[in-house]
């Protein structure tokens, strides 16, 4: 999209009847949403015991992501702030229950009832203050706090987000951590601007599980010229706030000649103008200096 929708209007106004229909009838969007939902479900890592689960679809819109959940055999509850989008979902006879609500006001669900939550392209809307009474931080707090409470132990929340910038992503991450979540960011195709997708995978409770690695170019076997050997799938893990930070021990020995020569070489490699090394480099000066 040339323009980010969240810069144009609040979601309940942007997604009016016309826009809601346009969104849902665009086969490209339907396809993308389906793929993102499948991937989010994958990242939920639900137990593969054949028992359907009860999931929450945050920002379910017209039910595109919800349909993927149903196709995978689970039941779901969807929340969205746009009545027009929900009306389209009703027309399409989605199988999940729908709620008209604002996630920034808190979810209003009882503790421990949800087996997993997904959100496709919705959470970034929380970062905008659409009304003068909105304070994004408080809304994010209400959202993550209520989400943490309603998830059952060991359940996960997976959000596919399009953060506008690093600051926004950090704001979201910070609020999630403060609410008690652990987890990480999974980035699929980190080096491709077109294909790059970010998933915030949040975990609840003290269950130690491994976060999956993101996909990279090698997955699909497509040949892109810039794929290099050491292309790592992007995974950034967030540490628990309570884990003690590693303190840097200050170097008491001072800066030796070796260190100085190394730094000068580094600077030269960067292309800076560095005086030549001589027998005077790093020599101890008279106390006068």
């Amino acid at each position, binding site marked *: 999209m040339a323009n980010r929708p969240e810069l144009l209007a609040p979601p309940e106004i942007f997604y009016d009847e016309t826009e809601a229909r346009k969104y849902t009838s665009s086969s490209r969007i339907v396809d993308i949403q389906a793929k993102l939902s499948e991937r989010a479900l994958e990242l939920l890592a639900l137990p593969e015991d*054949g*028992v*359907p*689960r*009860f999931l929450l679809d945050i920002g379910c819109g017209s039910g595109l992501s919800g349909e993927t959940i149903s196709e995978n055999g689970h*039941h779901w*509850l969807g929340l969205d*702030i746009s*009545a027009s989008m*929900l*009306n389209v979902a*009703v027309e399409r006879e989605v*199988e999940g*229950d*729908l*709620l*008209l*609500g*604002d996630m920034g*006001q*808190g*979810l*209003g*669900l*009882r503790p*421990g*009832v*949800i087996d997993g939550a997904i959100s496709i392209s919705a959470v970034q809307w929380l970062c905008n203050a659409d*009304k003068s*009474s909105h304070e994004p931080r408080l809304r994010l707090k*209400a959202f993550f706090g*209520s989400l943490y409470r*309603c998830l*059952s132990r060991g359940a996960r929340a997976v959000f596919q987000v399009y953060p506008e910038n690093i600051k926004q992503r950090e704001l979201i991450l910070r609020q999630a951590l403060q609410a008690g979540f652990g987890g990480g960011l999974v980035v699929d195709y980190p080096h491709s601007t077109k294909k790059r997708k970010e998933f915030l995978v949040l975990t609840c409770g003290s269950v130690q599980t491994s976060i999956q690695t993101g996909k990279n170019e090698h997955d699909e076997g497509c040949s892109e010229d810039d794929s290099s050997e050491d292309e790592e799938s992007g995974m950034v893990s967030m540490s628990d706030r309570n884990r003690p930070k590693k303190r840097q021990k200050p170097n008491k020995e001072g800066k030796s000649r070796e260190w100085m020569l190394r730094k000068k070489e580094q600077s030269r490699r960067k292309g800076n103008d560095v005086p030549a090394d001589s027998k005077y480099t790093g020599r101890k000066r008279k106390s006068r200096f």
Partner: protein
Amino acid sequence: MRLITHNMLSCNIKGVTNGFPLRIEAGNVIEKEVDFNPDFIRHMFAKLEWKALVEGARSMGYAELPEDSPDAAVLESDESFLKKLHHALLELHLEEGALVCPETGRKFPVNKGIPNMLLHEDEV
């Protein structure tokens, strides 16, 4: 909205401590058949607030559920009970009506099966 959702919803208004369960004012209730999966019903049973479910079902016109929450043995063996629970949780839809907060009396209207849980500025 089905009872499976109603059993999880609580009133979110600021300051409300006893917002669960929301009282159902049933305007129009319809039935839609859903495939029966006993594993799912057993899985959900542990999360349910039984009394709220029985009351909610009664408000929607279904009085077949037992007053007292059954024990594990019934859950394992009694399929007819599971089918009743399945029917109550997944097949009854509140299309029009309202959900009422037990503490403040605030009504959340339900239209086309969708409850409007949006809070006003002063309720947040």
